[in-house]
């Protein structure tokens, strides 16, 4: 009873319920939804697809969580993802042996290093120049996509490189590589922030920057770190997205992914006002979003109604999560309990 109440009062309760509801809807529309088959030693099934397609959003959302915890926001993740993809593909295309593992390794490394530079740039604008994060990252969001297009010259760069493609649609030990990468990023972020003092510092800077400064927390370095990490996440996601179709599309890679990532973070219960964050919540949030997208496809919601459907789901989750609703619920439960008590007394 109390355990149940505890679960019900958790911030993650309603998002998880929503996830289950979406699963149920899918199951009705497509009875094979939960079936996971093994083919050629690889896992197949709708759930696997959801994980795989949700991986880039999740990876970015992990970085975004930390940025948001410091009271920031990063709108440039989509552009950074596009740049990473463009850089990697143009290097692979430019090399004489696109299928070579070393080529791909170099391409990926260069893309990641560039993303680090971009992250430091964001961190510089926010931490050193003190520009409001939304505007600071808006600059890179606009210009960054331009840079990505500059690299690809506006064309879609298609690469024929199995090792590169492996990042996006390959399998390792039967599990999609993208999922493994996401799990690693997620695990590392959780480990580093929770096993060291970083998590506490990030929260403390997000809650009260001046108090943190006076307590000796190096806010500036911290901001550099989170924006850089977020850009790194964005680049990893960008590489997965690009590898998934084996083509760098500077226009569309990661377009609007910042909204999805932020939405995932918020559905997961992290406040945009900074402070306490929950990576687990972000995971649930990202899954809800990806399942939502998949549901639209499998259930056959007509394109014109997709947006309305999304709006409805987001609204419902938010309303259910709201403390006001929780109060109303607990009031209801108390009244029930009172009535039950009376009943007992009467009998």
């Amino acid at each position, binding site marked *: 009873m109390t355990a149940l109440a505890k679960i019900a009062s958790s911030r993650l309760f309603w998002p998880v319920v929503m996830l289950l509801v979406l699963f149920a809807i899918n199951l009705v529309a497509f009875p094979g939804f939960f079936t996971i088959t093994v083919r050629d030693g690889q896992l197949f099934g709708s759930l696997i697809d959801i994980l795989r397609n949700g991986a880039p959003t999740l990876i970015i959302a992990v970085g975004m969580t930390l940025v948001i915890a410091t009271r920031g926001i990063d709108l440039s993740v989509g552009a950074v993802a596009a740049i990473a993809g463009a850089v990697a593909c143009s290097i692979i295309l430019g090399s004489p042996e696109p299928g070579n593992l070393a080529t791909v390794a170099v391409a990926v490394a260069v893309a990641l290093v560039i993303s680090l530079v971009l992250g430091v740039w964001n961190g510089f604008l926010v931490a050193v120049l003190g520009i409001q994060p939304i505007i600071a990252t808006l600059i890179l969001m606009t210009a960054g996509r331009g840079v990505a297009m500059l690299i690809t010259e506006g064309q879609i760069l298609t690469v024929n490189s199995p090792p590169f493609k492996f990042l996006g649609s390959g399998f390792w030990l039967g599990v999609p590589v993208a999922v493994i990468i996401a799990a690693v990023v997620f695990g590392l972020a959780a480990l580093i922030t929770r096993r060291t003092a970083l998590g506490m510092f990030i929260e403390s800077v997000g*809650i009260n920057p001046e108090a943190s400064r006076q307590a000796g927390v190096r806010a500036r370095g911290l901001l550099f770190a989170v924006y850089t990490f977020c850009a790194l996440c964005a680049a990893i996601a960008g590489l997965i997205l690009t590898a998934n179709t084996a083509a760098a599309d500077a226009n569309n890679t990661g377009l609007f992914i910042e909204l999805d990532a932020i939405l995932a973070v918020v559905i997961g219960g992290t406040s945009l006002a900074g402070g306490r964050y929950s990576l687990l919540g972000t995971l649930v949030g990202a899954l809800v979003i990806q399942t939502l997208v998949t549901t639209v496809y499998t259930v056959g919601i007509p394109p014109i109604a997709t947006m309305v459907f999304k709006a409805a789901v987001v609204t419902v989750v938010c309303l259910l999560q709201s403390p006001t609703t929780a109060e109303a619920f607990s009031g209801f439960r108390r009244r029930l309990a009172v009535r039950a008590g009376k009943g007992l007394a009467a009998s």
Partner: protein
Amino acid sequence: MRGISIGFPGVKALDGVDFRMFPGEVHSLMGENGAGKSTLIKALTGVYGIDAGTITLAGEQVSFSGPAQAQAAGISTVYQEVNLLPNLSVAENIMLGREPRRFGGIDWRAMRRRSAELLAGLNLDIDPGSLLGDHSLAVQQLIAIARAIDVNAKVLILDEPTSSLDADEVAELFRVIRSLKDQRVAILFVSHFLDQVYEICDRLTVLRNGTLVGEYLVDELLRIDLVQKMIGKELTALDELEQRVHTVAVGESDAATFVSASQLGRRGAINPADLPIAAGEVVGLAGLLGSGRTEFARLLGGIDRADMGELTVSGESVKLRTPRQAISKRIAFSSENRRDEGIVGDLTVRDNIVLALQADRGWARPIPKKKQDELAQSYIQALNIRPGNPDALVRNLSGGNQQKVLLARWLAIAPRLLILDEPTRGIDIGAKAEIQKLVFNLAENGMSVLFISAELEEVLRLSHRVVVLRDRHVVADLENDGLTVDSLLALIADGRVASDDEALEELQADGAAAPVAVAAGAPAPSVTGAPAPSGTATTHPDHTEGGPR
């Protein structure tokens, strides 16, 4: 109010408390930190919904769903944490919600005029057009009071209004309270200063741990009984302390200098000044509101950068650019503004306590969980932080307990110089004594302390040396050897900047003449009648909150 109960998750903040107020009477709500005083006030004014009980105002049962309604019903409140808007002008902060209007819009001129009048009523001479955020906490507290007394209220509630004020301001406030009392306003006055309570109040209600202990007439309750009712046991700590202060004060002068500021200053904030602090020495900073004590302390703590002069720590010249550097030199600065610069509200008590220590160790070397728990537990016990749950969010602690958490944070880094800016703000007498004892013990073990407090008695009681600031100048640096509150006040309030030497002489003469005030310690009758200007309100240099015998 009858049978009021309020519960927060895990805490029963109020349990069936009865409380009443009468027109034309000043009523005080007493109790330790976390007893539930602020919660009761918030219940009364509709900030918190009550779980049980009824509230009756002028014979009618009421239930406010928010402060706006309470205000409309004639209840005007100054809450414990100064809740004003830093981005608006002083005039707006005073008048917001009931601005004078003309032609359908706000009449700015009238607004300014009216607020200037109100400020003048509190003898506060500031420009009503200036931004609120530009003023120090004490001034903000006065502005909040000005706002509250402007309303034509039936009930005026002041939750620790005097926590940052010095004697002058308190006197002004009391003058205003008395005149409101004559207009048959019912006034609720919360303070941890027993002197003030005995001076102004007619009746008091004591709370302990969220339950009602009783309601008493002030005249009929001895201080010693009051204290006992508040904390549930007798308090002896202060007495011990007094004995020790003065034994230790002697013979401490030859200790090695730990920190020394020479001609340290910052343009627009504090004029260049010298200040050596020896290891194990407690130095008090005294001065009027706005005299620059905080500013000076901030330079030493590395919060603001000094732009002139030199600072030496352990004989080594250093430049403190960030608080972090100061901390690495084991200099801790505990801000007077605990809400904005001190606590990290959404973190737990444990995290808040270990924060500075952890920051000093760096992120990569986390303090082991077990060690954290030990630290937290030991300070929770040492400072009697309540609730004693290290996982509670600091935001949900009562004001005084937040202050204790902040103090614990700084003690945890084992500082060699601890700068305490108004550390006892809003702390109950029991805890205050504990803190003073702690400071003293630490000083005995070689920690230097720079102590700032609006309460001169406290400064005198603790300090080996007292440094006086006026108009952002250091005007005197005296051994606490026969100093009295009066002599200090004379020095502080003296308008002549040029005559440092004279003042010093005068003071030394004074000091020699007056008996050591702190030693007096007799139960003081409360001061009645209008106080004389210039700080003579506390003619009785009385620290006796806890120590009548």
